[in-house]
Structures are given as structure tokens and as C-alpha cells.
């Protein structure tokens, strides 16, 4: 697993790739549906080698940028 130097920029880039049609909307997570959440989980697992099952993460934690960055900071070590 190669961790990105700037997790926030990398995450935003990934979120934009999920919703190319809605790049202009302010919050990249605002329109994320259930399928998007799954893709986000896979992204966190593959990019940071996390095992989210052991992290007591809830789906709602993945609906804000701060929440996701918090998870990355806490569990990707």
C-alpha cells in the first residue's frame, strides 16, 4: 500500500471521479448514494490498507469530508 502524500487532495480527486457530472456542486459528498459509499469503503481499504470492520465505522461517518479524514488519520497508521 502506497499512501498518498496529501490525503485530502487525493480523497477529493477520488470523490470527483465518483460524480463527474456534479463537480460543480459545493460539497463532494452531498449527493453520494449507497453505491458511492461502498466505492468509498473500497477506496479506503485499498489506498490505506484499512480494515474498516475493526474500526467501528458507521456509514454516516463517511458522509462528511472531516469524518473521512478523521478515519484516515486514526486508522491508517
Amino acid at each position: 500500500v502506497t499512501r498518498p502524500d496529501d490525503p485530502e487532495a487525493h480523497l477529493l480527486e477520488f470523490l470527483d471521479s465518483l460524480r463527474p457530472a456534479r463537480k460543480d456542486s459545493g460539497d463532494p459528498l452531498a449527493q453520494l448514494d449507497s453505491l458511492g459509499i461502498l466505492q468509498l469503503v473500497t477506496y479506503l481499504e485499498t489506498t490505506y490498507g484499512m480494515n474498516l470492520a475493526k474500526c467501528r465505522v458507521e456509514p454516516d461517518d463517511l458522509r462528511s469530508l472531516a469524518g473521512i479524514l478523521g478515519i484516515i488519520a486514526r486508522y491508517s497508521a
Partner: protein
Amino acid sequence: VAAVTLSGLLLAPTMGGAAFPAAVALLAANRNPQKRRTILSVLAALVCAASLGAIPIGAVATAASGKTAVALTLAVITAVAALWCWSRYLPRLPAIRHPLALLHGSAVLAVVALGISCRGGALSIEKAALCAALIPELLWRASYWIKWRLRQPGDKGAAENLFTVIPFLGRGGVPYGKGPEYLTRYEASDASERAAAQIRGIGLLLLALAWRLVSALIVARVHGGAQPWFGWSFSPASSPLLPSMSALLDAPLSYPLSLRWAALFSELVQNILTLAAYGHTIVAIYSLAGFCIPRNTSAPLLASTVLDFWARYYFYFKELLMDFFFFPVYLRCSRLPGIARTLVATFAAAFAGNVYYHLFLYAPEWMQAGGRQFGSMALLRCVYCALLAAGLGWSIGRASRRAERRPPWQQAMGILGAAMFFALLHIWNYHEGEASLAERWEVLQSLFMWD
């Protein structure tokens, strides 16, 4: 004050005797936003006590007497107090590794014990069924509560958030607004946000009234039936335009093919209107109290995929299945390849979770002698959930391969396809106890047979 007074008037037809305490508490909650949750907890206890005498329990269909209603209220208070005490000490009890499993195991044991007591004659059928009907009302709210407590340092805020556990809004056990943590995300933080939330609440109440009116009009003028609109009935059409679903189940082939399909879509529209009106009322109350939570039903007929329709149709039930079944299974299956992992989690939520949720709702039927009704309802639910899981799995598989933007004709076909899927699915969901699997299968077959 004007907004909340108006809300009291609008709530009266829906909440009956509970509307007055609700309006007063909403007024108080808005005057003291810092004590909003405490006031709502008091309101929840009042409304719950006022409405517990009329729990719908399927075939038992007995409204609880005054004495039983008091006993039920005491049972709810005891359960909520026990949960509060337990959750208060939960973070300090490392021995309980899986508190949610313990809670659900206890609920299953309680239902089994009620069934055995009832069969053995230790408890009357009515009392056992009423107690069993209470369990799902508390179970999912308590599950969200425990999830929240496990993530909370210390025992701060436990008492003031009790309103999220008390079953005071709606029936069926689906917790609108989920738990305290979710509500915090949507809580108005200043006067202008509070005002916006209240205006949204009034709008939703008016919309709920309008949808109920449209639904009553469809029943009377299109199907020739009678559905009261706050005590006022429209005169039924002498020659109905379409058969009702009950009529279709009785003799599907006695109507032309076009009418059979039209009746099916009309039933879907009516079902959506009923659910939307019900959900809007509950979401409106939360909005009036300052929690601007998302709608339960949000234009499902505009959804262009089965997955999107499901999310727009019954949002809080979908969230319940996501939170307690889909997401935990998805996380634990990390070794499976992507699509297999998603399908396993979809099956766990849409089939296993959905059946599990409904078995608690059907438990009062099991208390009856023989439990035949319970068996047929459970079987019907299994068929419904298997079809739903298959539809959602197929939709997820397609969505993961598809580009974001689709041409308009594909969007239109998607909208028609999603609506058709749920219209056909509703054949297996319509009034569980009223028609057999064979009768429903006949309706399905009749839709693909020429006249």
C-alpha cells in the same frame, strides 16, 4: 408561536388526542432550543402514553382497554429506564463484547417466552400479542441508541436523548431520524436555521394533508371505494374507472389487460402517497422541533433505477437495513471480489434483514392458536424480500458498470422500469394477511396474458 400554533391545528387530525401536548411541547422546544431534547423527551412520554391504547396488532385487532394501556405504558417506561441504566454503564462493561447481539438475542427470547406463556395458558392471547407488538417498536430505536452510546465518551446526554428511544411517532418500529448522533447533524444551530426548519415543517404538514386528500380522491373516484379524509368521505364513483387491488386479487381475469396494468400502477401511486403522507407528518414534527432531517419519501417515481427508487421510497427503513445489515456484512466480507461482496451484503440486508425485521412485526400472529396466519405471512415476506434483493442486486450490478450520464430516452426507460418493478413487487406486499401466495401468483400471471 404562529407557526407552532398552526402546526398544532394541522397535527390534530393526524395525532388526535396527542396533538395538544405535541403542539405545546413543540412551542416550548422552540422557545428553549438549549433544552429542546429534554422537552421532546417529555413530549415523547406524553404522546406515547396517549397513543399506546391503540396499537394495531394484526389479526388480534383488539384495541387495548384503559387498564391494559396503562400496563403497556408502564412496560415502555420500564424498558426505556432499563435501557438507559444499561447503556449508562455500557462503556464500563468490557465483558459485553456485542451489546447489539445481546439486545436482539433478548428480544428473540422475549418473543419466544411470550409465545410459550400464551400457548401454555399462563398469559392471555391479547396480552401476549400486545407485549409482542411492543418489542419491535422499541428494538430498533434501542439499537440506534446503543450504537450511539458505544461511541460516546462518558454518559453525557443520555437522559435528554431518551425521546429517540420512546416510540411516540409512527408505528412499525422504523426510527425516523435514526438516533441522537444523526439528529445532531441536522439540528438547527441558530434562530434563522430554526425558522427555516419550522417553515419546512409546516410545508411538509400541508403536503401530507394534500397527499391524503389525493389518495382519498383516487380511492373514491377511480376505484369506487371509501377512504375518509379526516372524517369526511367523498362519494364513491358509481362505475369505477379501475379495479382495486382487492378486486384484482379476487378475480384478475375478469378485467381487461389494460385495466389490470392500470390498476397495478394506480395501487403503486396510492401506496407511495400513503407512505409519503405518513412520513412527511413525522419528519414535519422533527423539523418543527428544530431537526431538519431528510424526508422519508422523496419523489420515488422520478427514480431511474431500482436502487434509487428504493432509497427514495422508504428512506429510514432503507437506512435501518444499511446500518444494521448491509454495512456490517460489507465490511466483514473484504476478501470477496467487489461485485460478490456487494451482492452478499445486498442479500443480507434486503432479504435476511428485511425478513428478520418483519418476523418481529408478525410475532403477535404467532401467539394465535396454530399460528397458521404467521406461517403464511412469513412465507409471503420471504418471497417479497427475495424478489427485492434480486432487483436491488441486479440494479447495483448495472449501476457499477454504467456511465454517470445517460441519454434522456434511457433515463425515461429507467424511470418506467423502476416503477414497473416496484408495481409488480407490490403484489407480494399488499395486505399480508388478505390473500394467499397462489392468488398473488394468479394476478402476476394475468398481467402477461392477452385477453
